[in-house]
Every structure is written in C-alpha cells, then in structure tokens.
C-alpha cells in the first residue's frame, strides 16, 4: 500500500465528514460492482467480482467423500481464501497468511453458521448422497487478485455468485449396500443439480473514519479508519453475524 502524506490524509477525512469522498461517492454509496460467473470451466462453479480496483475470484469444487462420523447426514463445506502476491507486495511469501486466515474464518462463520450449524447459508444435508457413507465435499476457494479495500464484501459476493453458478453432478447409487462396504456410485456427466443460494448472506462492511461510517472503503480510506463492523444479512433480513472486524484495523495500526 502506498503511503499517504499528512495533507492527503486530512483531505480524505475532510471529504468523508462532508459526505464527498475522493471519487465523489457519498458515504453510503458502493463502487460499481461487476460480476462474471463461469470463468473457470474446470471448476464446478466460479465467479469473479470487481469492486473498483478490488478484484477477487471464487471457485467451487465438489468431490465425493465420507461424511463426518458425528454428523452422518451432512456433507462438508470448506472455505479458504488466498491473498495472492499480485494484490500487494506485502502478501508475498507468508505475508498474506494472517489476512487470509481472518477472511476465511469470517466467511465460514457467515456462510456456514455457528458451531451447531445455526444460521447456515447452505444446508449441508442437501449434500449427502448415501447417509453415513458418501457425501459431497465442497471446497470453496477465494483468490484475491487485486486489493483496493473492502475485501470481505467482495469475497462474500463472489462466493454467493460462484455457488449460484455451481452444478453438482447427479449421482446414481448402486442398489446394494451391505454393512460397511462402500457403495458404487456413478457420477453423471450430463445432469447437474443447481444449488439453492437464496439462503446465502451478503456481507456489508462499515468503516469508521473520524465520526462517520462509510461503506465500501478503498485502501486509502481503510488506512484512515479507526474500526470497522461487518454485518452479514440474508434474504429474510436476519442478521447472521456481527463481526467486529479487526482485520484492517490491525493493518492500519501496523502502519503507524
């Protein structure tokens, strides 16, 4: 991230207090969002979201696996975010690991719900093929290509779009299942089942600069923030989670 002079910082703060940010947005206006789906043909679902200069890609891969012994009627979903070094020089090597872990944990909590499964955006029981024996494992990967602030919102949007684009292949199970034997499964190449993504929430991050809150901060505005709150809301308007985001606050204090 390029540094900012005292004069520029003052200008940014003044703009936010006067409701006119650097690119002339209001405090509560988002940058134009561009979403493309189906960009990775090898994956079962993928999407790319561009929010100003922030560019993220999400991909969904489904593999057959064995369900957890404690939850035999549920499939498994794993969300993992990787901050690519092309996004910022500080992400090179292990630099981006802290941010990646924070983003992954935050997204898992929002989309998969709490420990008991309450508030999950995706119903894991829809992923089971043969109870106790075969289930789908979904691997959702997020990749940050270019970072200009507001990564959490962009990633949540990308994951939602990727899941809506995902087609899980239809599976035919062979009839006999005796005891512990693994049943034979036939993965169809032609028929796919679409996901119901209406329950997946959307995340909105509010960043506090001075005395006001702004939405969709650029990385320059994020460097001036004192704190941020991310709220994930689903279609029914239920607040799933309030995350006191220390992600960028930690970054901002590091720079000082």
């Amino acid at each position, binding site marked *: 991230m*390029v*540094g*900012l*002079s*005292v*004069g*520029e910082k*003052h*200008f940014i*703060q*003044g*703009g936010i*207090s*006067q409701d*006119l940010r*650097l*690119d*002339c*947005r*209001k405090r509560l*206006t988002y940058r*134009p969002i*561009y979403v493309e789906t189906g960009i990775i043909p090898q994956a079962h679902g993928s999407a790319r979201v*561009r929010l100003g200069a922030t560019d993220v890609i999400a991909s969904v891969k489904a593999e057959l696996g064995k369900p957890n012994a404690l939850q035999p009627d549920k499939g498994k979903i794993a969300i993992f975010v990787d901050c690519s070094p092309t996004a910022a020089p500080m992400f090179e090597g292990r630099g981006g690991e802290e941010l990646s872990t924070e983003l992954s944990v935050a997204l898992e909590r929002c989309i998969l719900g709490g420990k008991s499964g309450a508030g999950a955006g995706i119903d894991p029981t829809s992923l089971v093929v043969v109870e106790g024996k075969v289930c789908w494992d979904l691997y959702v990967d997020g990749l940050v290509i270019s970072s200009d602030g507001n990564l959490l919102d962009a990633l949540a949007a990308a994951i939602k779009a990727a899941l809506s684009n995902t087609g899980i292949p239809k599976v035919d199970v062979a009839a006999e299942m005796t005891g512990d034997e693994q049943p034979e499964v036939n993965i169809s190449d032609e028929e796919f089942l679409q996901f119901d993504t209406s329950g997946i929430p959307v995340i909105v991050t509010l960043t506090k600069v001075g005395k006001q809150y702004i939405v969709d901060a650029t990385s320059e505005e994020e460097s001036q923030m004192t704190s941020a709150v991310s709220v994930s809301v689903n279609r029914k308007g239920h607040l799933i989670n309030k995350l006191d985001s220390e992600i960028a606050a930690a970054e901002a204090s590091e720079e000082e």
Partner: protein
Amino acid sequence: MRGLQLPLSQTQRTRLQRAFEKLQSLSSKANSDASVTVADTIPVNYEDAFLKGHGTTELNGELVATVCGVVERINKLVYVRGLRARYKPEVGDIVVGRVVEVAQKRWRLEINFSQDAILMLSSMNMPDGIQRRRTALDELNMRSIFEENDVVCAEVRNFQHDGSLQLQARSQKYGKLEKGQLLIIDPYLVKKSKSHFHHLEQFGIDLILGRNGFIWVGEHVETRDSMVVDKPNSSEQSMVLEERNQTHTPLEMRQNICRVANAVRVLSTLGFSMDADLIMETVELSSSLKIDIHDMLGSEFHVLVAEREAERRSLMGKRRR
C-alpha cells in the same frame, strides 16, 4: 484500445466504436503505419546504413520489433518506443513525486521511473528564503521540510552518471503539495507543453500535470515571493498548522476538485492525452449536462466524452483544410 472495464449497453458500445473509428481515421496516416507489435518486421531500407535502437533486434536478416509500440526514426536511428512503459525523463520536465526516504542531505522520491529520483537539500529553497550554505542543523531539520510520504512537485535537473535522476525545486511554484488528491495515470498521456501548472480560476483549483503521470488536483495555494521579509511568515505558518487541523476544504471547492479529478480519470480510461483545455471542456460538458459528479465515472459519460472528442478533432481537421 485496451479493453474498457465498463458495462456498456449495445447502443453505447456501437456509439463508442464509431467514435473510436472516427478518431483513428483522423489521426495522421504516418503514425498508424508505424505502430508495431512484437515480432513485426520494421520496414527499413536495408541498403542505407542504419542503427538498431531500443526495442529492435535482427532476426534472420530482418529488423524485428521486440516491444509493442510506435516506430521512431531519427536520422539513422530506428527504434521502437513502447507506450505503456515507465516514465522517460527529460531535463526540464516537471514531475510530481512522493518522498520515500529522507537520506543524508537528500530526499528520495518515487516518480514512476526505473529508479528513485533524488532531490538534494541544496536544490531546495530554505523555508526562511535566505540563500546560504546548508549547515548540519539544516540537515537534521530536513524532516520539517519534507517527510516520508509527502507529495512534492519538482523539476528534472540532470541525470547522474549512474543513470539516476536529480531534481530541483528552487522556484516557489515547486514544493510540498497538500490539500488535494493525487491521481496516477499512464505517463504517455501527458505530453510536453508550455505550462504544466494550471490555475483554474473559476474553481480556485490548482492542477499540476506531472510528466511522469502523477496528476495533482488541489486547492489553490498562493505562491509567495521568497524575497519578501519573513518574520510575519513564521507566525503565519504556525497559525496555518493549527487552522489546518480544524478547517477542512469547503464543500464547493471539494466538489470542484472531485469533478476535475473524475474528468482526468475518464480521459485516462479512454486513452486521450491530458491537456488542461481538454480537462476543462470535459468538466464543462458534465456540468452543462447536469451530470452528477459520481455519474461521471459511468459508461454514458465515457461515451459522450469520446463522441465529443471525435467531433472536436474532425472540426479541427476541417478548419485546417
């Protein structure tokens, strides 16, 4: 044109396409023949002696381009000038840079060049305006003049023997830039012109077009003559610092700064050369059509600007004939 990252409707796409075609047909024929991409053969008369310059190589007895750009011929030298390259400095250019380091008796500035440029302490006017030898105390107080991450406007003085750049900021119009925003565009869009400092009177805004692609848009700052007696200045300066912490730029000026900044962004997305007149025209176009400042970054305004530019150039061409 590099793929525009704009959502264009079908009509907008056709209008934009037509405007670009018009502009291309209006550009001089010689130039359009001279653009090459990698591995294109450069048309050269092989009987004449010629020198192979940057961006060319001899392959199988033919002169082939190694970069995408425009072929330039100067006397016997044939070279390919890349377009989206880093800034190529010339002596006397005005540049805007950001301080990355405060070193011994000098500041290092980042100016989108292959190396950091150097601004010597001796090439900088002292705040009290007196011409004198720089003492050790001056060296220790360098941070009171420029700190890290400050935005500075300076002029290219010369090249060092190792290829690095030396800058100077001796005149009052150079120096620290505050109360505004810095925009970064491609260096090839800023052509050399008579003046790079523009004071937009009707807005009260300073517009500095750095040749390295850094554009500064900010509140107008009066350039004071350093010869004027300075005692009242020092008290004024400390008062200004306190004031600064309390007062912000007034809203109307901020709106004007935003409008100009957005005009620069639109022109750079479309790939048009930066020119104070062109920027002013774009701003006037937006205010005459009552376009909201934020909508200036939308696709409709981009298409309008492209069409207006095509019209303007065709009119200019007709006038010449």
